[in-house]
């Protein structure tokens, strides 16, 4: 079974002359790590929001583990780490996790044990009682990921998970993602970092101007950055 099936999705924002996504299809097999790449404004974030049911009104369909979205059970399979640091800065790391765990419908005991696990895995155990506002950019990024992992998701959606972090935090994060994938977690990775995509992912979908322009195996591609530029062009994409 595929973890994620997207079939012929077209989506247009209100008042926008052109659709943000046009007849877009892709699939991610269960247990795989898949990269979703595209220039700025290609429609990646829109697609992420459609997958999680935040945006609706599109034509076509999205299924998560065979459940057609929007579906609350399917949502419980998804862990999402958005590109912005989506945390409460005045709360401690543990308080943030407690809140997001409650939102995911977890019991207090589950939240406590999974918080310990997630904080340990992201290297934040010693800082768990500190306010997030006092965290470095790398620590905030790792906690952003920890919040997505808390409810043991089967499908992890990561939007620029390593943006603005130092090589130490980045490599720590890569090791964790590979460990999670080895444990059966499917990962859809949205990134502008070609090295990251090539290192972590076995599958690749290229998206540009709302359309799929490539879908295949990462191993078929030699230099991903060259491939990306060849497919999407070298012209600037100022929005």
């Amino acid at each position: 079974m595929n973890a994620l099936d997207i079939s012929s999705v077209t989506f247009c924002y209100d008042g926008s002359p052109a659709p943000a996504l046009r007849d877009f299809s892709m699939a991610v097999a269960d247990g795989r790590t898949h990269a979703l790449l595209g220039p700025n404004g290609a429609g990646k974030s829109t697609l992420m929001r459609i997958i999680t049911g935040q945006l609706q009104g599109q034509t076509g369909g999205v299924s998560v583990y065979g459940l057609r979205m929007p579906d609350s059970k399917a949502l419980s399979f998804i862990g999402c780490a958005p590109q912005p640091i989506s945390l409460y800065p005045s709360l401690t790391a543990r308080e943030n996790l407690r809140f997001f765990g409650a939102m995911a419908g977890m019991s207090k005991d589950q939240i406590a044990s999974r918080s310990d696990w997630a904080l340990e895995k992201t290297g934040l155990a010693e800082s768990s009682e500190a306010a997030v506002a006092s965290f470095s950019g790398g620590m905030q990024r790792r906690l952003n990921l920890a919040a997505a992992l808390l409810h043991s998701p089967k499908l992890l959606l990561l939007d620029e998970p390593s943006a603005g972090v130092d090589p130490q935090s980045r490599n720590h994060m890569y090791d964790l993602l590979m460990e999670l994938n080895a444990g059966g977690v499917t990962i859809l990775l949205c990134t502008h970092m070609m090295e990251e995509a090539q290192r972590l992912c076995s599958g690749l979908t290229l998206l540009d101007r709302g359309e799929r322009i490539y879908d295949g195996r990462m191993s078929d591609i030699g230099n991903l950055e060259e491939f990306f530029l060849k497919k999407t062009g070298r012209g600037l994409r100022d929005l």
Partner: protein
Amino acid sequence: MLVLVRDRQTILLLFLMPVALIFFMSLALEGVWADKLVGRKISMVVDNQSRSYQANLLAGKIKAHALIVPVERPAGADVDRIFAEGTAQAVVTIPPGFEEGDRPVEIRFDPVMDASYRIAARSLITSLAVEVVMGVDNLEAVVSGLVVERSGPNRELPTPLQQTVPAYAIFAMFFIAIPMSVGFLREKKDGTLQRLFTYPVSANLVTLGKITPYFLINVVQFVLMMLVGIFVMSRFIAPAFHAGAHPWHMLPVTLAVAAATTGFGVLVAATAKTPEQSSTLAATGAILMGVFGGIMVPHAVMPPVMKKLAMISPMFWAHQAYLDIFLRDAAFGIILPRLIILTLFAIICFYVAGRKVRWI
């Protein structure tokens, strides 16, 4: 809730601002209100230049009257200086020849003195002068059979504390729209709100969870303001706060006001595009509602046009509902229409915000 509680500066502001406003506005209103409610004595210099029997009698009657506080003229002080230094509000000069009717008694008033007090003082001096000239012992007693004063209980003009305690509690409750809308927009901007919608919870539940802490803070704000009014302000400002015959009516009114304020906050959050815009919009909206609604200028002393315009402000309905309780001892049936209007305001705000908002 925890996020809001951690924002200590905002919480302090929400509680300290109305306390400060209640204290200073009550002090400012105390003098004006005392005049209107219980009447004030007029400080007066009586300058008897005649020293005749009749002039002495008149001077004695003026100084002995209950409305007058006799003040000695400071040595060498002219009338302008007496007024400038606030020594007295009026100077009565009884000139030589007054008893023969050659020269009239002269009254000079402090230029800033209230017109109604001038009229009262002038009538008093006139009637006392008539008593002396006509040889009547007590004119007031003579005419008591002709003119009788009848006035009902005061149901319109609140005491300073009855005005300011609910007024600035309501004002501060509406100010919750600032942290509320800023919080919503900040969460929208940093993606936290988006993240919440990736969990299997309904948007309505998320919204309710966001609104409830502000609603509760509103209720706590009102309770604290009432406690401050009853137990603290009453020590400094007279008359003491009177909560009316049915103080439990405050509960439904406060809940309706809290619904209106949180509705206003959600509407601001849905209308504004940035946190900066929302704080400006919420503050301006609250101040305008306060100006129109009888918060800054009491509704009872507004001109008729403004009294009608006040009805566009939800703060007016909220304040009048509290005055119904404190001042008019009103039955619940009297308060109910005001509660319905406040609840309708809340429903309209939530509905418009719901139609307009794009949370993610």
